[in-house]
């Protein structure tokens, strides 16, 4: 408990510095409103339900896109590792698509699917699928031959073997890839909502900023970063649980 307090001490110092800088008007109050006022706006945003509604819309988009990316990306990565034709077909596509800044696709997805949820989900799906596919591919390739053989000799057919041996063998690497995808999903979510959207946290940030409600804008920015932090922490806990079987020694 005590160590946790110490760990987050720099955050407290930063908050105090922020408040002091704004109150002493070292920078203009429109550029940096005092933290206390940002908190007041945050409470207002919660009270009016504006924050909850837009958070819900954003989480739905990020969640749906990420879930699709995890399911399809894992299947593709394992397929590429275990079936040559899939590898031949997909690996050049992955290579070309990998370095493309996915935010460049924001206008494209809007042309395809419009201003609503579909375009955001598609964008997040496409962006997040790449790290998931690559990590599933690398993880699956590293599965041990003798484990595969053991499962086969105990009566597992090929599909069963992929599920029982290759997927869990790939899990440590795959879970790291998904963590990257999780962070990416927030980036793509907010940037796409900033550019074209009628709801969502990114939209709210843009809208409040354009209307000069800087305290409220900061409040939403803080909400987004808190959500990202909470998601990553929760994910790490899940990951440790799923990989409990590793690194335990007598």
């Amino acid at each position, binding site marked *: 408990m005590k160590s946790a307090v110490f760990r987050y001490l720099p955050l407290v110092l930063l908050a105090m510095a922020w408040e002091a800088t704004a109150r002493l008007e070292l920078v203009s109050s429109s550029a940096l409103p005092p933290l206390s006022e940002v908190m007041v706006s945050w409470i207002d945003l919660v009270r009016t339900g504006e924050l909850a509604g837009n958070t819900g819309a954003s989480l739905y988009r990020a969640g749906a896109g990420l879930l699709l990316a995890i399911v399809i990306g894992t299947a593709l990565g394992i397929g590429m590792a275990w079936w040559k034709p899939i590898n031949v077909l997909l690996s050049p596509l992955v290579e070309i698509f990998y370095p493309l800044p996915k935010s460049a696709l924001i206008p494209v997805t809007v042309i395809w699917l419009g201003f609503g949820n579909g375009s955001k989900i598609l964008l997040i799906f496409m962006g997040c699928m790449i790290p998931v596919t690559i990590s599933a591919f690398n993880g699956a390739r590293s599965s041990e031959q003798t484990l595969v053989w053991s499962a086969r000799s105990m*009566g597992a057919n090929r599909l069963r073997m992929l599920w029982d041996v290759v997927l869990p063998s790939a899990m440590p690497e795959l879970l790291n890839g998904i963590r990257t995808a999780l962070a990416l999903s927030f980036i793509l979510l907010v940037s796409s909502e900033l550019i074209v959207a009628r709801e969502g946290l990114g939209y709210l940030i843009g809208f409040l900023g354009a209307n000069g409600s800087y305290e409220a804008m900061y409040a939403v920015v803080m909400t987004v970063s808190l959500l990202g932090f909470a998601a990553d922490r929760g994910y790490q806990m899940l990951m440790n649980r799923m990989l409990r079987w590793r690194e335990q020694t*007598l």
Partner: protein
Amino acid sequence: MSSQPQIAIDKVAHVYRPPRGRPVLALEEISLQVQQREFVALLGPSGCGKSTLLYLIGGFLPVEKGSITVNGEPVKAPGPDRGIVFQHFALFPWKTVRDNILYGLERKTMPRAEREEQAQHFIDLVGLGGFEDSYPSQLSGGMKQRTALARTLAFDPSILLMDEPFGALDAQTRHLMQAELLSIWQRTPKTVIFVTHDVQEAVYLADRVAVMSARPGRIKTIVDTKFDKKDAGIFKSKGFVEKVDELWNLVRDEAIKAERRAP
């Protein structure tokens, strides 16, 4: 035993094709017949292809030349009639001891209660009571190999393929495991093909020892090694010592040849 052999290997050859480099003739003209409930050791220097032969019998590698039949049927794929135990255990690291042992049983149609009972029986048989919920990473080498042995015995294959199963264990544990394997084999007679480069281990465990030559691997000779294995003083008996000596001389030439030819 005049019945047809359980495993019949006829003029098998195998070419190993590494991802880079030239193909290597790993096995040539291998013929061997193994009767039901027989314990046969494949003895030879490292690189003689004895593990490759085991993998061919297991159905893990394709038989490209010659034929291998098990119970009269040609081997095409791995199957639960042939259980395998590897040198490095090959346990599922994400499963506990119990779940590892249950894996083969889950592939069979069997009520859950019966499965659990079977698994517990084999956990007790190999002396792993109290470690059911441990993960492999928490076990010693000997305990890992006990788990692997229990996992393979649990789904009741009629043939046990063992690929230097005690090679990764320290000398004392290896001795214990040899005695234990022998006593398990005497209680639940199965056909065993046991790959090893340890002469004494081969003579102690097997009914017959097939001595293999190095690259390309061939069966040089087959030596009868039936002893009264229950005799506690067997290791010092004249017959045993002489047999070990005889086999040692056969293997040594091959080991020297293999060393000189090693790339």
